[in-house]
């Protein structure tokens, strides 16, 4: 990687911060260095507040980047994201980025299936934009609790060839798990690759389905992260080649290399 792509500390300014749905927001930062350097599937380690009782940074996928700006979709789950939701335009923060190993784009792909559950949509904006630039047709299977939690639908409607949705409560699309959509989509589109992000049990199901269909699958895993840069070993993922660090070796892993049992849900609460 050339040095412009190496992680660095960048002071950033909130440009806008809107509520998108219950407990969900979209924040846009002025962050020229990171916006120029970041690749799809990478993340930033954000210092949300100084002087707060919580001290660690919070990792967030970058949903979209461009024109010096970074866009992040976030769900309010605790003290950090609550403080993020309260940030106002003009507020300063800082982040470390770009971080991690993002999505891989193997040559020769014609069709990609993108599967996102809940905030697993976080790293998918840059992904589908890149796929579009590569001329790969993408189908998005998006799942959420309810219709209003299907975030950024307009962007995906514009960029993907096809979008299908599933909700837990049936308020939009299929009633049930987003992974329920996979069989039909795999049959219909014969994708060359499956990209997955969401709650870990859902990722595991998606990975299994992809494996059964014989399609390569990449998953973006969440782990608790203290440093975000590879030194603390908080974020390890059990893989076929031993323990790997989600923050530098991931967060995107080849699903076939993840040793799902043992790693698994325990690592994050949700």
């Amino acid at each position, binding site marked *: 990687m050339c040095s412009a792509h190496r992680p660095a500390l960048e002071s950033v300014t909130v440009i806008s911060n809107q509520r998108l749905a219950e407990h969900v927001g979209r924040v846009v930062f002025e962050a020229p260095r990171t916006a120029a350097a970041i690749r799809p599937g990478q993340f930033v380690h954000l210092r949300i507040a100084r002087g707060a009782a919580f001290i660690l940074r919070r990792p967030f996928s970058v949903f979209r980047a461009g024109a010096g700006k970074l866009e992040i979709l976030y769900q309010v789950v605790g003290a950090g994201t609550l403080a993020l939701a309260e940030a106002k335009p003009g507020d300063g923060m800082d982040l470390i980025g770009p971080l991690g190993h993002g999505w891989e784009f193997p040559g020769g792909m014609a069709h990609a299936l993108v599967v996102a559950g809940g905030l697993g949509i976080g790293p998918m904006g840059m992904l589908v934009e890149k796929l579009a630039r590569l001329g790969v047709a993408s189908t998005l299977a998006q799942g959420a609790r309810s219709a209003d939690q299907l975030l950024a639908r307009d962007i995906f409607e514009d960029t993907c060839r096809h979008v299908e949705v599933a909700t837990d409560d049936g308020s939009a699309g299929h009633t049930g798990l987003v992974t329920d959509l996979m069989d039909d989509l795999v049959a219909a589109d014969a994708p060359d690759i499956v990209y997955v992000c969401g709650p870990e049990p859902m990722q595991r199901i998606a990975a299994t389905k992809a494996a059964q269909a014989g399609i390569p699958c990449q998953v973006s895993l969440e782990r608790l992260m203290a440093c975000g840069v590879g*030194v603390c070993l908080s974020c390890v993922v059990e893989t076929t080649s031993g323990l790997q660090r989600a923050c530098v070796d991931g967060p995107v892993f080849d699903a076939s290399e993840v040793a799902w049992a043992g790693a698994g849900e325990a690592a994050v609460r949700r």
Partner: protein
Amino acid sequence: MTPRVDMRVRIGALELRNPVMTASGTFGSGAEYADFFELSRLGALVTKGVSFEPWRGNDSPRMAETPSGMLNSIGLQNPGVEAFCAKDLVWLADADVPVIVNVVGHSVDQYVAVAERLDSEPVVSAVEVNISCPNVDAGGIAFGTSCNAAADAVRAVRAVTTKTLIVKLSPNVTNVTEIARAVEAEGADALSLINTLLGMKIDTSSLRPTLARGTGGLSGPAIRPVGVRMVWEVARSVQVPVIGMGGIMVAEDAVEYLAAGATAVAVGTATFVDPMSAVSVIDGLQQFCAVRGIDRVADLTGAAWPERTS
């Protein structure tokens, strides 16, 4: 222009360009943070704990945040001393910084084996014997909580190392000065403290311990008052220099440790919060001395002691 401050301090045979180190386990072997600043800015770089054989560490989750602190139960995951020498030390050979290797073991023999292996490595300036890790079942803290066990481990390592020998003490003890004196008597050149406080968090939604291992080590600003108190106690009871750590975030925190009696300090958890922390502490310390007309940072050591007060 700020007046020149002599920032050098001495730890055993080692002269450091300034009193600020990284704390073991919070800086890897430096490569990751070399993106952020010149490692030669550091007084010394302390590596993560290194064992003789590779260690797998504990199950996940290994980390939990707590008020003004964090718990970790990494469990000293590391590739073993051979891989460490082959990879980390080779990389460090080009970094212009004194290297202190944190040494761990499940038994006295294992500590000895690692220290012996490192003794021939010119890149290594000192070894820090970690008898205080709370996150492993055998060894670690078991040595650091008993005077006899601590003395045994240090005596054995002393016999095989010509390097400056630092012993890292546990705060999870009734009387830290007893242990400090016991290991000083066995030839420790310096003492570092504190390692993490043993703590636990329970996830109230699952009603299970948050960490897979149950307990973990508490670090960060929450523990600073405990660290400062223990450095005060230990530095006043031993002759060897003390390296103070625990919750140092900014230069003023380092001043607290120095004034309590530390000769040098280490920055740990703060680096996760801000990779530039150690450098900011160095710059801030220099500034602190300059503003107050303190010529040598070493003059801060023990400045708060009653015998220095009048």
